[in-house]
């Protein structure tokens, strides 16, 4: 299992555009806001949670659609389905390596972008924790969508339409935690619910993704 994750990460790292695209997208979107809105510190501070979270969500959406595309085209997906390892576990390996290469860089750069939007240090900390809890959910849910569209050549906006409704709760609680932190209110409730989302997704999303992949191949 460790080897499979290692090779998945290696194959992504060798295609720099694959993991740099969401990162650059994330940085560009967030840095455009102060330029467009102006240097109003209070306003930027108020908007920061929403801006960073929406940018992170869209950046995830940008990359997740191709999670199984190359594998399907190269016939590697066929081999995953024939492997004696449970498909759920293989999907989990794929999702984890995707998160490590596509979402972790966003989280690492987010304090810097928070600083750009005048986010106070305490909220920076909440931002990182909320992204750490939220982005796995985005990736796991996105994997289900990516598996469903694997057999469709021109899917266009199908993936966002399919999974955006599922992303909304993550967005609400992620930004909610930050807003609560800004108002000096307790945040544990928000983070606990996000943690619950994450555990729920870890339990069910890989299984559903596996089923969707089998359906996608059966055509």
């Amino acid at each position, binding site marked *: *299992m460790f*080897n*499979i994750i290692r*090779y998945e990460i*290696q*194959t992504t790292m*060798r*295609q720099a555009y694959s993991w740099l695209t969401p990162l650059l997208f994330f940085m560009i979107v967030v840095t455009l806001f102060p330029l467009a809105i102006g240097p109003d510190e209070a306003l930027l501070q108020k908007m920061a949670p929403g801006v960073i979270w929406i940018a992170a969500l869209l950046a995830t959406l940008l990359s997740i659609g191709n999670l199984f595309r*190359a594998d399907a*085209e*190269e*016939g*590697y997906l*066929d*081999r*995953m*389905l*024939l*492997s*004696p*390892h449970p498909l759920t576990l*293989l999907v989990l390996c794929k999702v984890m390596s995707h998160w490590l290469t596509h979402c972790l860089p966003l989280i690492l750069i987010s304090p810097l972008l928070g600083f750009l939007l005048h986010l106070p240090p305490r909220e920076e900390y909440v931002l990182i924790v909320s992204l750490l809890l939220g982005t796995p959910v985005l990736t796991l849910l996105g994997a289900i969508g990516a598996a469903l569209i694997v057999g469709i050549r021109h899917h266009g906006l199908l993936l966002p339409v399919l999974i955006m409704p599922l992303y909304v709760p993550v967005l609400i609680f992620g930004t909610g935690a930050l807003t609560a932190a800004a108002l000096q209110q307790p945040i544990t409730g928000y983070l606990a619910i996000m943690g619950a989302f994450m555990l729920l997704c870890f339990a069910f999303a890989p299984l559903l993704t596996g089923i969707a992949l089998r359906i996608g*191949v*059966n*055509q």
Partner: protein
Amino acid sequence: MALSIHHLAFQRNNKLLFSDISFGLEAGEMLQVRGENGCGKSTLLRILAGYIYPETGRVLWHGKNIFQHLDDYSEAITYLGHQNGLKPHLTVYENLKLAVALSGIKMQSDALKNILHVMKLDQSEKTQAVYLSAGQKRRLALARLQLIPARLWILDEPATALDHAGRHLLADMLKQHLACGGMAIVATHHDSDSGSVIKTLELGSKASIYV
């Protein structure tokens, strides 16, 4: 019968690709599936590999329906389609290592090097698969085939892009596999030079009646 197929039929876009296909395969036997382009060879092979559910008919592996026992069946077979199933940005050696990890077997690196040598890939061991020629990619896929033990090989046009020596290697591989009690189902639209063909299934002529 190790593998037996009963009255298999499949239609796509309201066109019957094939129907009423029945055959059986025992250890050490090979079935050659022949037919013109578009007669459903690949589809038949993907059904036999468990990827596609047939419209009607059953595929039994030691008496059990493969679609109800996919996990057991998957362990017994290996499938090589038109795509080679490689990770383009991993090197030749890494691709084999990944194949070993994916199939859950333990393998010494000597055995990997040995197979690369047999397939004449040892020169490009550290080359990423994306930079290989089509024939070399196919050789790498065939190397993987030899590495991972499977009773039944399902090969869709395995000789594509192979040079003369490559075809000989493939024929030897198949011969050895059959001699060890393995089975093979091979689709091809031209005559195979391997002398080990035991059964032939001709697609197209029969299905065309129903079009």
